[in-house]
């Protein structure tokens, strides 16, 4: 998960100067060690399976408590960090991505995961989604999309389909819903994948691929709200008579237009990686600027660098 920003010479005072960490072998964390509060979600909520698979990811990839940071905004799914026994932050509504960017850009040693819902991602936080994607700031963003506002008890969400009856659209939702896949691709995300909570193996696969991607990796994970939008995703669940179709084997993930076309398919559409590109991350680009500047200053102490600037103000 290390990006090129780590190639900057480590020194006192550098934003990247962090202890090299403990090198001793520790055994992989068990679910028990990584689980914190019992989730407050309603029984049957799709978010349980996303949480379980996050634990599995941590266990499988032998990530240490102190090396992951779980960040969320506001919403049912955004309660996520409380349930994970690791450093985490529960930030304000819609702003988890810029917060996570601050962590990612200063701490290349950490795995930064952001969890949230469709309201957080595409309504109040829509602007941040676009800009974090286009800047390609290294992190993994899992949006647990349930097509409804659950925490506030059934209002229309930006992904609610037209006709969905909610407390704010008594006669059915009127507005064209956001298509998360299209949004991510057009914003410039470099990893765009789609999965559903009813297929645990696939969720884990997508999480692993996202974590290994050097850049902004986005996963839309359908996650049913049994309380306020029961059955929303039945047609994607073979156990409920629906179909779960993977992205075709011959799909070229580097082809932006093909990805966009895939995203345009009517629900339930396809599942898997729609788009993946290798573009320099913001982390790496900032690292380059720093390296170039440090070439002239790395032999100096901080006060000496500042003294040089002050000399020009005499």
């Amino acid at each position, binding site marked *: 998960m290390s990006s090129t920003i780590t190639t*900057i010479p480590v*020194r*006192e*005072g*550098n*934003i*990247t*100067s*962090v*202890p090299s*960490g*403990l090198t001793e072998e520790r055994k992989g964390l068990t679910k028990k060690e990584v689980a*914190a509060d019992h989730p407050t979600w309603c029984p049957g909520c799709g978010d349980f399976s996303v949480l379980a698979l996050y634990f599995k990811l941590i266990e499988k990839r032998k990530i*240490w*408590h*102190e*090396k992951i*940071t779980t960040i969320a905004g506001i919403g049912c799914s955004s309660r996520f*960090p*409380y349930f994970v*026994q*690791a*450093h*985490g*932050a*529960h*930030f*304000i509504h819609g*702003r988890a*991505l*810029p*917060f*996570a*960017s*601050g*962590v990612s*850009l*200063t*701490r290349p040693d*950490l795995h930064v995961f952001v969890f949230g819902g469709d309201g957080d991602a595409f309504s109040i936080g829509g*602007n*941040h989604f*676009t*800009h974090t994607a286009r800047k390609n700031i290294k992190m993994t963003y899992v949006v647990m999309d349930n097509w409804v506002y659950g925490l506030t008890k059934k209002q229309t969400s930006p992904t609610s389909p037209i006709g969905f009856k909610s407390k704010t659209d008594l006669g059915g939702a009127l507005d064209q819903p956001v298509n998360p896949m299209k949004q991510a691709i057009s914003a410039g995300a470099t990893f765009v994948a789609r999965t559903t909570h009813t297929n645990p193996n696939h969720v884990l696969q997508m999480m692993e691929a996202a974590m290994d991607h050097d850049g902004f990796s986005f996963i839309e994970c359908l996650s049913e709200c049994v309380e306020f939008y029961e059955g929303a995703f039945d047609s994607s669940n073979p156990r409920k008579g629906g179909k779960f179709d993977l992205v075709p084997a011959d799909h070229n993930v580097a082809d932006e237009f093909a990805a966009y076309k895939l995203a345009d398919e009517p629900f339930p559409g396809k599942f898997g990686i729609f788009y993946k590109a290798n573009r320099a991350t913001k982390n790496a680009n*900032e690292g380059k*600027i*720093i390296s170039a*500047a*440090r070439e002239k*200053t790395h032999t100096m*102490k*901080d*006060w000496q*660098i*500042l003294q040089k*600037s*002050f000399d*020009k*103000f*005499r």
Partner: protein
Amino acid sequence: MSEATLTASPAGGSPKVSSVSDVVIRIAGNSQDGIQAIGGFLARLAGRSEQEVMTHMTIPATISGGPSIFQVRIGSGEVLSSGDEADVLLAFYQHSYEDHIGSLKKGGIVLYDSDHVEPKEEWAGLYRHVGVAITGLTVEAIGGTAKDKGKNIYALGLISKMFDLNVTKLEALITERFTGKDSSVLNNAMSAFHGGYGHSLGNIVETFKFVESQKKGGHQVVMNGNEAIGFGLIAAGVRFGAGYPITPWSDIMELLRRELPKYGGTFIQCEDEIASISMAIGGSYAGRVSVTGSSGPGISLKTEALGWAVMAEMPLVIVDIQRGGPSTGLPTNVEQSDLNICCFGGHGDSPRVVIAPSNVEDCFYMAIEAVNIARKYSVPVILLSDQAIATRIEAFEEPKLEQVCQDISPDLSPVATHKPYDLKAENGASRHVAPGTRIESGLYPIATGLEHDEMGHPTGSPKLHMEMVAKRRRKLNALAAELPRPAIYGPSEGNVLLVGWGSTQGPIKEAVDRARAAGDSVSSIHIKHINPLPNGLEEIFAGFNHVLVVEMNDEGLYGYGQLAGILRGRFCDPKIRGINKCDGLTFKVKDIVERVRTNVASGLRKF
């Protein structure tokens, strides 16, 4: 110019040379004429000559062009304000001449570009007119078709001659400024300067010589308030920040963007104000106090995230360079009307720290103080500056950087246990432990905006909410106890105490001097720590019959401004009243003096 130096020029005969200790020069032109450059050269020359200097400028809010002024006051003694009236007006255009002649003292010198200005008959007897064909002579001096370029430097030459300024030092400054560009640029600038310096002002006007200033130890540096804040943050060890462009804050983000990579850090331009405070909070959470900042509407946008930083007890520095409000307001004018939003903005009880520098030197040291308070108390700190300090150039003793600079790299060594919101922490000041820190108990903290228990997990317990609210408040009580009591300028007992904050310190002190010279009993204090207030103010107030709070904001519904409102709320004392104005301009010394007199003459109003 200091008293008694302005004598009428002798009729005929050779020009007289008078000695001066203090001079105010107002340069009026259009914003693209490079008049700030003239002022900048004069200010830096003063700094290198161990003189005191203060400048003041107005810039149009238009994208390009428009009338603009730059006023510079240079003194051999203490310079507290940029001056009420100018001794010399340099006018490039008819509008500059007509709009600014009123700022010139009677008998003062108006030096005008006779290629553009037609002097008015009725002013001929009031001011000493000196016309020089600046535009034409600049073209002559540089050669070719220089158009308008270089006439600022030509005018600098004229002024240098008039005040017998140090040519060697000015040449060095011009060389430093223009080196690196095409060598013809430097040659042209030198030609323009010497053209102006060599121009004969004839017998029309006397020339002046500054009296020797008292020698000071060490070098002086000359910079504006925004530069001082930017460098102060760097000295404090800040290596990450995020912002969004807005006037007059943008200079600081541009400086940090340019400078931080040299130190291994970076500054990010975000998509909006909310993202920038969020990203800065993320940087702080990740282990090192980070900075964001803004002006005007940007501060309003940041308040929700600010509330999170209070709740989650996250160290953070927010710089507010105030401008006229509300809404888009007066983007390039000064006002002190953000005090309330800085102290109270946001929902819920959310104690945060607000400190306000009173001059350029303060900007540097208080940026460091802001960082250290944020770290010590795990609290957001607002550094409240304004457009006047942001753009004004002052000279101050160069900081001893080796001693001042600090390393605040995060400490990520493993800890046995950690409670992020430990209720037993001394004064409620618990410590933030950054991600990457191994916690041996296996119990990890959550930073949160929900009311929480000591580990950061959500709670609806009434008892815990009360305890946590008190914890966040107690930190500020503890800070108040260690803040210095403001020094009294003038005697500690008397009739009137003026209370100021922020950029008004200079004019207030000068008003005290002037009023006392006229026999009035006036003293002043300047409050730099606004939230919390330092302890002991009531003892100071007890020594005076009237406490008048001088602020550049509206007198409000009840007759006093924002700081006065806080002081009245704190001390319940009706003798605290306001001297307010909000015309977008800095206080003039004589305004303060006159308003103190009328205010006190009207007596204490009954409430």
